[in-house]
Protein backbone atom coordinates (compact mmCIF):
# COMPACT_ATOMS: atom_id res chain seq x y z
CA UNK A 1 0.00 0.00 0.00
CA UNK A 2 2.85 2.39 0.86
CA UNK A 3 4.38 1.62 -2.52
CA UNK A 4 1.82 3.85 -4.12
CA UNK A 5 3.09 7.44 -4.21
CA UNK A 6 -0.48 8.74 -4.05
CA UNK A 7 -1.19 6.77 -0.89
CA UNK A 8 2.02 8.04 0.71
CA UNK A 9 1.09 11.61 -0.26
CA UNK A 10 -2.38 11.24 1.21
CA UNK A 11 -1.12 9.73 4.47
CA UNK A 12 1.57 12.40 4.84
CA UNK A 13 -0.99 15.14 4.20
CA UNK A 14 -3.44 13.68 6.71
CA UNK A 15 -0.71 13.38 9.33
CA UNK A 16 0.18 17.05 8.92
CA UNK A 17 -3.50 18.11 9.02
CA UNK A 18 -3.93 16.35 12.36
CA UNK A 19 -1.13 18.49 13.86
CA UNK A 20 -1.93 21.78 12.10
CA UNK A 21 -5.60 21.64 13.16
CA UNK A 22 -5.22 22.20 16.91
CA UNK A 23 -1.96 24.16 16.56
CA UNK A 24 -3.63 26.42 14.00
CA UNK A 25 -6.39 27.16 16.53
CA UNK A 26 -3.81 28.53 18.95
CA UNK A 27 -2.24 30.52 16.12
CA UNK A 28 -5.67 32.09 15.49
CA UNK A 29 -6.57 32.60 19.16
CA UNK A 30 -3.22 34.18 20.03
CA UNK A 31 -3.01 36.16 16.78
CA UNK A 32 0.25 34.51 15.79
CA UNK A 33 -0.52 34.32 12.06
CA UNK A 34 2.41 36.44 10.98
CA UNK A 35 4.57 34.67 13.57
CA UNK A 36 3.83 31.40 11.77
CA UNK A 37 4.74 33.01 8.47
CA UNK A 38 8.10 34.22 9.76
CA UNK A 39 8.92 30.79 11.14
CA UNK A 40 7.97 29.11 7.88
CA UNK A 41 9.94 31.53 5.71
CA UNK A 42 13.01 30.93 7.84
CA UNK A 43 12.73 27.29 6.82
CA UNK A 44 14.18 28.16 3.39
CA UNK A 45 17.32 29.36 5.13
CA UNK A 46 17.26 26.04 6.97
CA UNK A 47 17.07 24.20 3.65
CA UNK A 48 20.11 26.07 2.35
CA UNK A 49 22.12 25.35 5.50
CA UNK A 50 21.07 21.71 5.49
CA UNK A 51 22.17 21.27 1.88
CA UNK A 52 25.41 23.20 2.52
CA UNK A 53 26.39 21.17 5.56
CA UNK A 54 24.87 17.99 4.18
CA UNK A 55 22.59 17.31 7.09
CA UNK A 56 18.97 16.23 7.04
CA UNK A 57 16.60 18.85 5.64
CA UNK A 58 14.16 18.11 8.46
CA UNK A 59 16.80 18.88 11.09
CA UNK A 60 18.02 21.98 9.27
CA UNK A 61 14.59 23.51 8.81
CA UNK A 62 13.52 22.63 12.31
CA UNK A 63 16.57 24.18 13.96
CA UNK A 64 16.38 27.39 11.93
CA UNK A 65 12.61 27.65 12.42
CA UNK A 66 13.06 27.16 16.14
CA UNK A 67 15.78 29.84 16.33
CA UNK A 68 13.58 32.21 14.32
CA UNK A 69 10.56 31.55 16.54
CA UNK A 70 12.60 32.15 19.69
CA UNK A 71 14.15 35.36 18.35
CA UNK A 72 10.72 36.69 17.44
CA UNK A 73 9.26 35.69 20.81
CA UNK A 74 12.14 37.39 22.65
CA UNK A 75 11.86 40.60 20.64
CA UNK A 76 8.11 40.68 21.15
CA UNK A 77 8.66 40.31 24.90
CA UNK A 78 10.92 43.36 24.82
CA UNK A 79 8.18 45.50 23.36
CA UNK A 80 9.28 45.71 19.72
CA UNK A 81 6.56 46.54 17.23
CA UNK A 82 5.44 43.07 16.21
CA UNK A 83 4.36 43.60 12.60
CA UNK A 84 7.51 45.50 11.69
CA UNK A 85 9.81 43.06 13.47
CA UNK A 86 8.14 40.07 11.86
CA UNK A 87 8.08 41.74 8.46
CA UNK A 88 11.81 42.39 8.62
CA UNK A 89 12.73 38.95 9.96
CA UNK A 90 10.37 36.87 7.83
CA UNK A 91 11.33 38.33 4.49
CA UNK A 92 15.00 38.69 5.36
CA UNK A 93 15.16 35.02 6.30
CA UNK A 94 13.46 34.06 3.05
CA UNK A 95 15.75 36.28 0.97
CA UNK A 96 18.91 35.11 2.73
CA UNK A 97 17.78 31.54 2.26
CA UNK A 98 17.18 31.97 -1.46
CA UNK A 99 20.53 33.72 -1.95
CA UNK A 100 22.35 31.12 0.16
CA UNK A 101 20.93 28.28 -1.93
CA UNK A 102 22.32 29.87 -5.11
CA UNK A 103 25.82 29.85 -3.61
CA UNK A 104 25.81 26.11 -3.09
CA UNK A 105 28.30 24.47 -5.45
CA UNK A 106 27.29 21.31 -7.28
CA UNK A 107 23.79 21.47 -5.96
CA UNK A 108 21.05 22.04 -8.42
CA UNK A 109 18.08 22.50 -6.17
CA UNK A 110 14.54 22.66 -7.34
CA UNK A 111 13.50 25.55 -5.13
CA UNK A 112 9.84 25.38 -6.07
CA UNK A 113 9.65 22.08 -4.21
CA UNK A 114 10.56 23.90 -0.99
CA UNK A 115 8.54 27.01 -1.67
CA UNK A 116 5.34 25.28 -2.74
CA UNK A 117 5.78 21.74 -1.49
CA UNK A 118 6.09 18.48 -3.35
CA UNK A 119 3.69 16.15 -1.64
CA UNK A 120 3.77 13.61 -4.49
CA UNK A 121 7.47 13.05 -3.88
CA UNK A 122 7.07 11.92 -0.27
CA UNK A 123 9.25 8.87 0.33
CA UNK A 124 8.73 6.15 2.92
CA UNK A 125 11.32 7.77 5.17
CA UNK A 126 9.69 11.18 4.70
CA UNK A 127 6.36 9.68 5.63
CA UNK A 128 7.80 8.15 8.80
CA UNK A 129 9.39 11.47 9.84
CA UNK A 130 6.22 13.44 9.07
CA UNK A 131 4.05 11.00 11.01
CA UNK A 132 6.44 11.07 13.96
CA UNK A 133 6.67 14.87 13.97
CA UNK A 134 2.92 15.30 13.74
CA UNK A 135 2.30 12.78 16.50
CA UNK A 136 4.81 14.64 18.67
CA UNK A 137 3.08 17.98 18.12
CA UNK A 138 -0.40 16.55 18.68
CA UNK A 139 0.75 14.79 21.85
CA UNK A 140 2.42 17.95 23.16
CA UNK A 141 -0.71 20.03 22.59
CA UNK A 142 -3.04 17.43 24.12
CA UNK A 143 -0.77 17.07 27.14
CA UNK A 144 -0.61 20.82 27.80
CA UNK A 145 -4.16 21.57 26.59
CA UNK A 146 -5.61 23.06 29.78
CA UNK A 147 -2.52 25.15 30.50
CA UNK A 148 -2.25 26.35 26.90
CA UNK A 149 -5.90 27.33 26.87
CA UNK A 150 -5.65 29.15 30.17
CA UNK A 151 -2.48 31.02 29.16
CA UNK A 152 -4.16 31.96 25.87
CA UNK A 153 -7.21 33.31 27.69
CA UNK A 154 -5.24 35.43 30.15
CA UNK A 155 -1.63 35.23 31.26
CA UNK A 156 -2.51 36.72 34.65
CA UNK A 157 -5.26 34.17 35.20
CA UNK A 158 -2.85 31.39 34.25
CA UNK A 159 -0.20 32.68 36.62
CA UNK A 160 -2.70 32.81 39.49
CA UNK A 161 -3.37 29.10 38.91
CA UNK A 162 0.34 28.30 38.99
CA UNK A 163 0.66 27.92 35.21
CA UNK A 164 3.69 29.70 33.74
CA UNK A 165 2.60 31.57 30.61
CA UNK A 166 6.20 31.64 29.38
CA UNK A 167 6.42 27.85 29.48
CA UNK A 168 3.19 27.47 27.52
CA UNK A 169 4.45 29.96 24.94
CA UNK A 170 7.59 27.84 24.63
CA UNK A 171 5.48 24.72 24.01
CA UNK A 172 3.73 26.47 21.11
CA UNK A 173 6.98 27.80 19.71
CA UNK A 174 8.48 24.33 19.74
CA UNK A 175 5.36 22.81 18.18
CA UNK A 176 5.40 25.45 15.46
CA UNK A 177 9.02 24.69 14.55
CA UNK A 178 8.29 20.95 14.28
CA UNK A 179 5.19 21.56 12.15
CA UNK A 180 7.13 23.85 9.81
CA UNK A 181 9.78 21.19 9.34
CA UNK A 182 7.29 18.42 8.56
CA UNK A 183 4.85 20.51 6.50
CA UNK A 184 7.58 21.93 4.25
CA UNK A 185 7.32 18.91 1.98
CA UNK A 186 3.51 19.06 1.87
CA UNK A 187 2.64 22.68 1.10
CA UNK A 188 6.00 24.44 1.06
CA UNK A 189 7.36 27.36 3.06
CA UNK A 190 5.11 29.98 1.48
CA UNK A 191 1.86 28.19 2.31
CA UNK A 192 2.49 26.57 5.71
CA UNK A 193 0.82 29.46 7.50
CA UNK A 194 -2.24 28.98 5.26
CA UNK A 195 -2.51 25.37 6.36
CA UNK A 196 -2.41 26.54 10.00
CA UNK A 197 -4.85 29.42 9.75
CA UNK A 198 -7.46 28.60 7.11
CA UNK A 199 -8.81 25.31 8.58
CA UNK A 200 -8.93 26.89 12.06
CA UNK A 201 -10.68 29.99 10.74
CA UNK A 202 -13.18 27.83 8.85
CA UNK A 203 -13.75 25.75 12.00
CA UNK A 204 -14.47 28.90 14.05
CA UNK A 205 -17.69 29.37 12.11
CA UNK A 206 -18.96 25.95 13.17
CA UNK A 207 -17.59 25.49 16.69
CA UNK A 208 -19.13 26.34 20.04
CA UNK A 209 -16.17 25.35 22.23
CA UNK A 210 -12.37 25.34 21.91
CA UNK A 211 -12.28 21.54 21.67
CA UNK A 212 -14.90 21.48 18.93
CA UNK A 213 -12.94 24.07 17.01
CA UNK A 214 -9.74 22.04 17.20
CA UNK A 215 -11.60 18.92 16.06
CA UNK A 216 -13.27 20.69 13.15
CA UNK A 217 -9.96 22.27 12.14
CA UNK A 218 -8.41 18.79 11.96
CA UNK A 219 -11.27 17.46 9.86
CA UNK A 220 -11.29 20.46 7.52
CA UNK A 221 -7.52 20.14 7.11
CA UNK A 222 -7.90 16.45 6.27
CA UNK A 223 -10.69 17.12 3.75
CA UNK A 224 -8.55 19.84 2.17
CA UNK A 225 -5.62 17.45 1.77
CA UNK A 226 -7.82 14.81 0.16
CA UNK A 227 -9.65 17.31 -2.05
CA UNK A 228 -6.45 19.09 -3.01
CA UNK A 229 -4.79 15.85 -4.07
CA UNK A 230 -7.80 14.90 -6.18
CA UNK A 231 -7.83 18.35 -7.77
CA UNK A 232 -4.13 18.14 -8.44
CA UNK A 233 -4.55 14.74 -10.05
CA UNK A 234 -7.57 15.61 -12.16
CA UNK A 235 -6.45 19.03 -13.36
CA UNK A 236 -2.68 18.61 -13.14
CA UNK A 237 -2.45 21.57 -10.75
CA UNK A 238 0.40 22.01 -8.22
CA UNK A 239 -0.53 19.91 -5.18
CA UNK A 240 0.40 22.28 -2.30
CA UNK A 241 -1.54 25.29 -3.60
CA UNK A 242 -4.43 22.96 -4.56
CA UNK A 243 -4.75 21.84 -0.92
CA UNK A 244 -4.85 25.47 0.23
CA UNK A 245 -7.42 26.32 -2.48
CA UNK A 246 -9.75 23.60 -1.18
CA UNK A 247 -9.27 24.83 2.41
CA UNK A 248 -10.08 28.38 1.29
CA UNK A 249 -13.26 27.19 -0.44
CA UNK A 250 -14.35 25.39 2.74
CA UNK A 251 -13.67 28.59 4.67
CA UNK A 252 -15.87 30.50 2.23
CA UNK A 253 -18.70 28.00 2.61
CA UNK A 254 -18.63 27.92 6.44
CA UNK A 255 -18.39 31.71 6.64
CA UNK A 256 -21.35 32.23 4.31
CA UNK A 257 -23.26 29.50 6.15
CA UNK A 258 -22.60 31.10 9.54
CA UNK A 259 -23.67 34.52 8.24
CA UNK A 260 -26.86 33.00 6.84
CA UNK A 261 -27.72 31.28 10.13
CA UNK A 262 -27.04 34.47 12.08
CA UNK A 263 -29.22 36.52 9.73
CA UNK A 264 -32.09 34.11 10.13
CA UNK A 265 -31.93 33.94 13.92
CA UNK A 266 -31.56 37.72 14.02
CA UNK A 267 -34.91 38.23 12.35
Amino acid at each position, binding site marked *: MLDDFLMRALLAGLAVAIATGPLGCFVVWRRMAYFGDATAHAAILGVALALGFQISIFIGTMVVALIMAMVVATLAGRGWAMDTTLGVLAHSALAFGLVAVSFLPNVRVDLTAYLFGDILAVSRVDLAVIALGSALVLGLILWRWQGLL*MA*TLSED*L*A*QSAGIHPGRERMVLTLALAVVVAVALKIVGALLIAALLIIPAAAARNLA*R*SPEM*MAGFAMSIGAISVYGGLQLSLAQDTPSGPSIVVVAALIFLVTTLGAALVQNRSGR
Partner: protein
Amino acid sequence: MSLISAQGVAVSYTGRRALFDIDFSIDRGEIVTIVGPNGSGKTSLLRVLLGVVAPETGRITRAKGLRIGYVPQRLHLDPGLPMPVSRFLSLPSRQSPQAMAEVLDRVGVPDVAGQNMATLSGGQFQRVLLARALLTRPDILMLDEPTAGLDQPGVAAFYRLIDEVRHEMNCAVLSVSHDLHVVMSASDRVICINGHICCEGAPQIVRDAPEYRALFGLGTGGALALYQHSHDHVHDDNCDHDHTKDHAHHAG
Protein backbone atom coordinates in the same frame (compact mmCIF):
# COMPACT_ATOMS: atom_id res chain seq x y z
CA MET B 1 1.44 32.67 59.36
CA SER B 2 0.31 35.08 56.65
CA LEU B 3 -0.88 33.84 53.26
CA ILE B 4 1.14 36.30 51.21
CA SER B 5 3.64 38.86 52.38
CA ALA B 6 5.89 41.41 50.74
CA GLN B 7 9.02 42.96 52.25
CA GLY B 8 10.54 46.11 50.82
CA VAL B 9 9.14 45.41 47.35
CA ALA B 10 9.70 47.75 44.41
CA VAL B 11 8.36 47.26 40.87
CA SER B 12 9.45 49.08 37.70
CA TYR B 13 8.20 48.92 34.13
CA THR B 14 10.78 49.94 31.52
CA GLY B 15 12.53 52.25 33.93
CA ARG B 16 9.37 53.80 35.36
CA ARG B 17 8.90 53.13 39.04
CA ALA B 18 5.40 51.87 39.74
CA LEU B 19 5.83 50.77 43.36
CA PHE B 20 8.45 51.14 46.06
CA ASP B 21 8.95 50.41 49.77
CA ILE B 22 5.99 48.05 49.91
CA ASP B 23 5.64 46.05 53.13
CA PHE B 24 2.47 44.04 53.12
CA SER B 25 0.91 40.90 54.48
CA ILE B 26 -2.52 39.33 54.58
CA ASP B 27 -3.75 36.63 56.96
CA ARG B 28 -6.30 33.88 56.55
CA GLY B 29 -9.87 35.19 56.60
CA GLU B 30 -8.87 38.85 56.44
CA ILE B 31 -10.50 41.38 54.11
CA VAL B 32 -8.01 43.92 52.88
CA THR B 33 -8.80 46.64 50.38
CA ILE B 34 -6.18 48.56 48.46
CA VAL B 35 -7.30 52.01 47.40
CA GLY B 36 -5.54 54.62 45.36
CA PRO B 37 -6.06 56.87 42.37
CA ASN B 38 -5.53 55.72 38.80
CA GLY B 39 -1.89 55.01 38.07
CA SER B 40 -1.04 54.65 41.75
CA GLY B 41 0.21 51.07 41.37
CA LYS B 42 -2.83 49.21 42.72
CA THR B 43 -2.88 46.69 39.91
CA SER B 44 0.91 46.43 39.96
CA LEU B 45 0.75 45.46 43.61
CA LEU B 46 -1.78 42.75 42.84
CA ARG B 47 0.33 41.49 39.93
CA VAL B 48 3.52 41.31 41.95
CA LEU B 49 1.67 39.44 44.71
CA LEU B 50 0.27 37.04 42.09
CA GLY B 51 3.75 36.48 40.68
CA VAL B 52 2.99 37.86 37.21
CA VAL B 53 5.74 40.46 37.56
CA ALA B 54 8.91 39.90 39.54
CA PRO B 55 9.80 42.49 42.18
CA GLU B 56 12.80 44.63 41.31
CA THR B 57 13.89 44.62 44.93
CA GLY B 58 12.54 43.00 48.07
CA ARG B 59 10.80 39.66 48.30
CA ILE B 60 7.38 38.11 48.08
CA THR B 61 6.56 35.12 50.27
CA ARG B 62 3.55 32.94 49.55
CA ALA B 63 2.31 30.21 51.88
CA LYS B 64 3.11 26.75 50.59
CA GLY B 65 0.36 25.32 48.37
CA LEU B 66 -1.51 28.61 48.42
CA ARG B 67 -4.58 28.56 46.19
CA ILE B 68 -5.36 31.94 44.69
CA GLY B 69 -8.78 32.72 43.24
CA TYR B 70 -8.07 35.62 40.93
CA VAL B 71 -10.82 37.80 39.48
CA PRO B 72 -9.28 40.12 36.89
CA GLN B 73 -10.55 43.58 36.14
CA ARG B 74 -11.28 42.69 32.56
CA LEU B 75 -10.92 39.62 30.45
CA HIS B 76 -10.46 40.20 26.79
CA LEU B 77 -11.93 37.32 24.82
CA ASP B 78 -10.60 36.95 21.31
CA PRO B 79 -13.60 36.66 18.97
CA GLY B 80 -11.80 33.72 17.36
CA LEU B 81 -12.06 31.71 20.57
CA PRO B 82 -15.48 30.18 21.26
CA MET B 83 -15.81 29.92 25.04
CA PRO B 84 -19.01 28.70 26.68
CA VAL B 85 -19.42 29.53 30.36
CA SER B 86 -19.30 25.86 31.35
CA ARG B 87 -15.96 25.44 29.56
CA PHE B 88 -14.53 28.56 31.18
CA LEU B 89 -15.44 27.27 34.64
CA SER B 90 -13.42 24.11 33.92
CA LEU B 91 -10.18 26.10 33.83
CA PRO B 92 -7.66 25.30 35.15
CA SER B 93 -9.13 21.95 36.23
CA ARG B 94 -12.17 20.03 35.04
CA GLN B 95 -15.35 20.51 37.07
CA SER B 96 -18.45 18.36 37.33
CA PRO B 97 -21.74 19.77 35.97
CA GLN B 98 -23.17 19.72 39.51
CA ALA B 99 -20.29 21.75 40.95
CA MET B 100 -20.70 24.27 38.14
CA ALA B 101 -24.46 24.51 38.61
CA GLU B 102 -24.02 25.00 42.34
CA VAL B 103 -21.45 27.76 42.07
CA LEU B 104 -23.38 29.59 39.32
CA ASP B 105 -26.45 29.41 41.52
CA ARG B 106 -24.41 30.71 44.45
CA VAL B 107 -23.19 33.78 42.58
CA GLY B 108 -26.66 34.52 41.26
CA VAL B 109 -26.43 33.58 37.58
CA PRO B 110 -27.98 30.08 37.52
CA ASP B 111 -29.00 30.04 33.85
CA VAL B 112 -25.86 31.00 31.98
CA ALA B 113 -23.94 27.68 31.88
CA GLY B 114 -24.76 27.06 28.22
CA GLN B 115 -24.12 30.59 27.03
CA ASN B 116 -21.05 31.89 25.32
CA MET B 117 -18.95 34.19 27.51
CA ALA B 118 -19.14 36.90 24.84
CA THR B 119 -22.94 37.14 25.15
CA LEU B 120 -22.97 37.84 28.92
CA SER B 121 -23.78 41.26 30.36
CA GLY B 122 -21.12 43.08 32.40
CA GLY B 123 -22.66 42.01 35.70
CA GLN B 124 -23.09 38.37 34.62
CA PHE B 125 -19.53 38.27 33.27
CA GLN B 126 -18.13 39.52 36.59
CA ARG B 127 -20.12 36.88 38.49
CA VAL B 128 -18.90 34.13 36.20
CA LEU B 129 -15.31 35.28 36.78
CA LEU B 130 -15.99 35.06 40.52
CA ALA B 131 -17.61 31.62 40.11
CA ARG B 132 -14.50 30.29 38.36
CA ALA B 133 -12.30 31.67 41.13
CA LEU B 134 -14.50 30.02 43.78
CA LEU B 135 -14.30 26.63 42.06
CA THR B 136 -10.55 26.57 42.71
CA ARG B 137 -11.41 26.48 46.48
CA PRO B 138 -9.17 29.48 47.10
CA ASP B 139 -7.37 30.38 50.31
CA ILE B 140 -7.46 33.94 49.07
CA LEU B 141 -9.67 35.75 46.60
CA MET B 142 -7.86 38.49 44.72
CA LEU B 143 -10.14 40.98 43.00
CA ASP B 144 -8.91 43.74 40.70
CA GLU B 145 -11.55 46.47 40.50
CA PRO B 146 -14.18 43.75 40.26
CA THR B 147 -17.07 46.18 40.01
CA ALA B 148 -15.76 48.44 37.29
CA GLY B 149 -18.64 48.90 34.88
CA LEU B 150 -21.39 47.90 37.32
CA ASP B 151 -24.05 50.39 38.45
CA GLN B 152 -24.39 51.39 42.12
CA PRO B 153 -26.87 48.69 43.19
CA GLY B 154 -24.82 46.16 41.22
CA VAL B 155 -21.66 47.17 43.07
CA ALA B 156 -23.36 46.89 46.47
CA ALA B 157 -24.83 43.49 45.60
CA PHE B 158 -21.48 42.23 44.32
CA TYR B 159 -19.65 43.19 47.51
CA ARG B 160 -22.42 41.67 49.64
CA LEU B 161 -21.95 38.47 47.69
CA ILE B 162 -18.16 38.55 48.25
CA ASP B 163 -18.73 39.04 51.97
CA GLU B 164 -21.10 36.05 52.10
CA VAL B 165 -18.91 33.64 50.17
CA ARG B 166 -15.81 34.51 52.14
CA HIS B 167 -17.60 33.47 55.32
CA GLU B 168 -18.77 30.26 53.71
CA MET B 169 -15.35 29.43 52.29
CA ASN B 170 -13.29 30.98 55.06
CA CYS B 171 -10.96 32.65 52.59
CA ALA B 172 -9.14 35.93 52.71
CA VAL B 173 -10.16 38.69 50.31
CA LEU B 174 -7.73 41.14 48.79
CA SER B 175 -9.39 43.65 46.52
CA VAL B 176 -8.27 46.69 44.65
CA SER B 177 -10.72 49.51 44.33
CA HIS B 178 -11.32 53.15 43.89
CA ASP B 179 -14.99 53.09 44.84
CA LEU B 180 -14.13 52.74 48.50
CA HIS B 181 -17.28 54.11 50.08
CA VAL B 182 -18.89 50.74 49.34
CA VAL B 183 -15.88 48.59 50.10
CA MET B 184 -14.80 50.24 53.27
CA SER B 185 -17.51 49.03 55.61
CA ALA B 186 -16.72 45.37 54.94
CA SER B 187 -12.93 45.66 55.09
CA ASP B 188 -10.81 44.76 58.10
CA ARG B 189 -8.03 46.92 56.77
CA VAL B 190 -7.67 49.54 54.06
CA ILE B 191 -4.34 50.30 52.48
CA CYS B 192 -4.06 53.58 50.68
CA ILE B 193 -1.30 53.62 48.08
CA ASN B 194 0.19 56.00 45.62
CA GLY B 195 3.40 54.34 44.48
CA HIS B 196 4.11 53.59 48.12
CA ILE B 197 1.85 52.89 51.09
CA CYS B 198 0.52 56.26 52.16
CA CYS B 199 -1.50 55.05 55.10
CA GLU B 200 -3.25 51.96 56.29
CA GLY B 201 -5.59 50.82 59.04
CA ALA B 202 -9.25 50.26 59.81
CA PRO B 203 -11.61 51.94 57.31
CA GLN B 204 -12.62 54.82 59.61
CA ILE B 205 -9.02 55.51 60.54
CA VAL B 206 -7.89 55.67 56.95
CA ARG B 207 -10.84 57.81 56.02
CA ASP B 208 -9.77 60.39 58.58
CA ALA B 209 -6.06 60.20 57.83
CA PRO B 210 -4.57 63.36 56.33
CA GLU B 211 -2.65 61.29 53.75
CA TYR B 212 -5.89 59.77 52.50
CA ARG B 213 -7.59 63.16 52.38
CA ALA B 214 -4.66 64.60 50.48
CA LEU B 215 -4.83 61.75 48.01
CA PHE B 216 -8.55 61.81 47.40
CA GLY B 217 -9.18 65.45 48.03
CA LEU B 218 -11.85 64.87 50.67
CA GLY B 219 -12.48 67.99 52.67
CA THR B 220 -15.46 66.82 54.67
CA GLY B 221 -14.79 63.94 57.01
CA GLY B 222 -17.77 61.66 57.42
CA ALA B 223 -19.46 62.76 54.22
CA LEU B 224 -17.84 59.91 52.40
CA ALA B 225 -20.95 58.36 50.93
CA LEU B 226 -21.96 61.64 49.35
CA TYR B 227 -18.60 62.12 47.82
CA GLN B 228 -17.63 60.98 44.35
CA HIS B 229 -13.96 61.34 45.06
CA SER B 230 -12.10 62.91 42.22
CA HIS B 231 -8.93 61.61 40.67
CA ASP B 232 -7.49 64.93 39.75
CA HIS B 233 -5.76 65.49 43.04
CA VAL B 234 -2.29 66.98 43.08
CA HIS B 235 0.17 64.40 44.22
CA ASP B 236 3.59 64.75 42.72
CA ASP B 237 5.09 61.73 41.04
CA ASN B 238 8.25 62.04 43.05
CA CYS B 239 6.18 62.01 46.22
CA ASP B 240 7.93 64.88 47.87
CA HIS B 241 5.54 65.05 50.80
CA ASP B 242 7.65 63.62 53.51
CA HIS B 243 5.77 61.21 55.68
CA THR B 244 6.66 57.89 57.17
CA LYS B 245 4.61 54.77 56.84
CA ASP B 246 4.60 54.22 60.57
CA HIS B 247 2.32 57.02 61.47
CA ALA B 248 -0.26 56.89 64.23
CA HIS B 249 -2.87 55.20 62.09
CA HIS B 250 -0.96 52.05 61.41
CA ALA B 251 -3.15 49.07 62.10
CA GLY B 252 -2.20 47.08 65.13
